[in-house]
């Protein structure tokens, strides 16, 4: 348990560090939301001063940080100028959508990568291995941005998939099963893009970890005992290779969040990505900080899950 609580401490320290870092950047930044307003001739300088005072923008940064922490405790996460509302409710629904997209993609990627990587590692040099290594190198070199654009073209040309959004306009009137189908239909393309971005790296690592284990003596002795190939691969070799893969899971959370940010913007998925971009363009800085904090929370949770899995799977950590 000491291991897990230490990791949790680490995660919360990261959150604090990110918030301080964001405010430090804010300190360096020229201009704010009201700076943009100044260009508008219909708003007088007096009004601007009043507005700045009302939102506490004329106070020192330290005071503003303290007040932000205060609003964080209250569950508001600061105030969005452009939406004229607390940040937290704006973020909550977007975060849910991002979570839906990323967890689906993550699950799909691992569900595909594990058996594929294992089978590929089982027969090195076979046609499946060569095909897979060729495909992974090609996919690794195509960035998600280009992948997303190309798949979007396919969607537009064939009309098989929606080109954006999360649900159809008549979503509210559908029955539950049809709602689920509609959602899955909209999920398909963004998930495919994320999957194609994630899968090659995962498969490479699964293959590398597995082929290291498959070379060890205990596998040969299992063969000698006459166990079936599938049982050796999945029951004996895979658990032995699990350790680096679980660490990889923790690392892939950050990659996935980055990719999802971009894919959400391109596919107009109503997640954190479009919100963050809008907030940056409007210089709505508390909203930006809020979105970054939420993504850091996801990251910390993902890493904690990886650590917990490691704790369950690896007795060496438990004993220590």
């Amino acid at each position, binding site marked *: 348990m000491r291991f897990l609580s230490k990791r949790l401490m680490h995660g919360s320290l990261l959150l604090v560090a*990110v918030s301080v870092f964001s405010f430090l950047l804010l300190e360096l930044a020229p201009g704010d939301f009201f700076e943009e307003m100044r260009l508008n001739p219909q708003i007088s300088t007096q009004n601007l001063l009043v507005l700045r005072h009302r939102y506490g923008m004329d106070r020192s940064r330290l005071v503003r940080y303290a007040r932000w922490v205060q609003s964080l405790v209250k569950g508001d996460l600061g105030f969005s100028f452009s939406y004229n509302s607390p940040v937290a409710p704006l973020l909550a629904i977007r975060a849910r959508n991002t979570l839906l997209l990323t967890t689906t993609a993550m699950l799909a990627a691992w569900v595909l990568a594990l058996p594929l990587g294992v089978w590929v590692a089982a027969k090195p040099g076979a046609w499946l291995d060569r095909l897979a290594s060729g495909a992974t190198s090609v996919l690794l070199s195509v960035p998600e*941005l280009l992948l997303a654009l190309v798949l979007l073209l396919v969607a537009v040309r064939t009309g098989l998939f929606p080109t954006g959004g999360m649900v159809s306009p008549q979503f509210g009137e559908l029955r539950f099963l049809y709602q689920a189908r509609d959602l899955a239909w909209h999920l398909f393309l963004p998930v495919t893009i994320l999957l194609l971005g994630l899968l090659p790296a995962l498969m490479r690592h699964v293959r590398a970890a597995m082929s290291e284990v498959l070379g060890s003596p205990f596998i040969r002795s299992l063969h000698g005992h006459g166990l079936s190939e599938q049982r050796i691969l999945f029951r004996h070799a895979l658990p032995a290779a699990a350790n680096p893969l679980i660490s990889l899971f923790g690392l892939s959370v950050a990659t996935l969040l980055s990719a999802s940010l971009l894919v959400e913007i391109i596919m107009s998925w109503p997640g954190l990505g479009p919100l963050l971009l809008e907030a940056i363009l409007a210089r709505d800085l508390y909203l930006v900080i809020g979105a970054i904090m939420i993504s*850091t929370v996801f990251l910390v949770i993902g*890493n904690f899950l990886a650590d917990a899995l490691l704790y369950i799977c690896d007795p060496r950590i438990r004993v220590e």
Partner: protein
Amino acid sequence: MNRRFYFRFGLLLLALFHGVVLCAGFFAPYDFSAQNREAPFARPTQVHFLDARGHFHLRPFVYRCLDGSASCETERSQACPIRFLASTVPDRLGGNSSWHFFRVDSPGQMFLMGTDSLGRDQFSRFLYGGRITLLAGWLAASLSLVLGAFIGSIAGFYGKAWDQVLMRGSELFLALPWLYLLFAVRAFLPLQITPAKAFLLVVAVIGFVGWARPARLVRGVVLSAKERNYVLAARGFGASEFYLLRRHILPQVFGLLLTQAALLVPQFVLAEVTLSFLGLGVGEPAPSWGNLLASLQQYHVLASYWWMYLPALALIPLFMGYQLLADALQERTKVVVV
């Protein structure tokens, strides 16, 4: 044969790409800002070898409609031959170099990748845009390598408190999702600026965000190098710390930095493409690969003008080349990067 072949193939691909982009003034038939208002969203021009009567011409040619419209049947058009290595007087469409790899006699026009909404030649914009994007990638990569080498060697060489502070900082940079970090730093910087300033800003932001990984790797190498016997001997002879770093320790880091460069340059090129694509990077009228793709965010462009995709497809070989190079270098130096 295999590994070396891939390495050389990647290198060749990159050399070709960079060479063509570097000599954009020579390879691009038109200027990047030359507008052609009669032909917005013109299809890629077809290059012909066979004329209407089926005769073969060694010199390829394009058809130009006599009434000036963008497309028409071949009967009502005039054939304009393509001249290679032609020196031309700048015509209506401009072009700042009088030497061009290929050029079509006026009134013919040749748009290899079609034109955009203002009738600007996409192919020329792609080449000129590559200059900006590749330069941004290279500059940002050098910036973060220099920063990383500096911070890493301080952390590794002086250790103790320096090490603690710098490495905790780098953990922060490594842990956060990369694009969020890039956005965060970009978010706090001004939006409405000239393309030149935007370019410098993008380079600075990307370079600043990427220092952490090279710094950690350099730190590792410096840590092991400073305990080597010859370094201890040099120290015993009274060498100054700066001399030790410069003469004995930093040369060890070189191979590592090279591998990192092969990884960072494409990543940073992509970062520039992403930022400009989203309107946070280099803006119009300066071309960059990112803002060439930006028009794809509009649905009607996406649906009707497939050739607007050509720049995106043309980028894939570049990233493939870098991937091959990075793989080969990693294989050689045995640095594993997730």
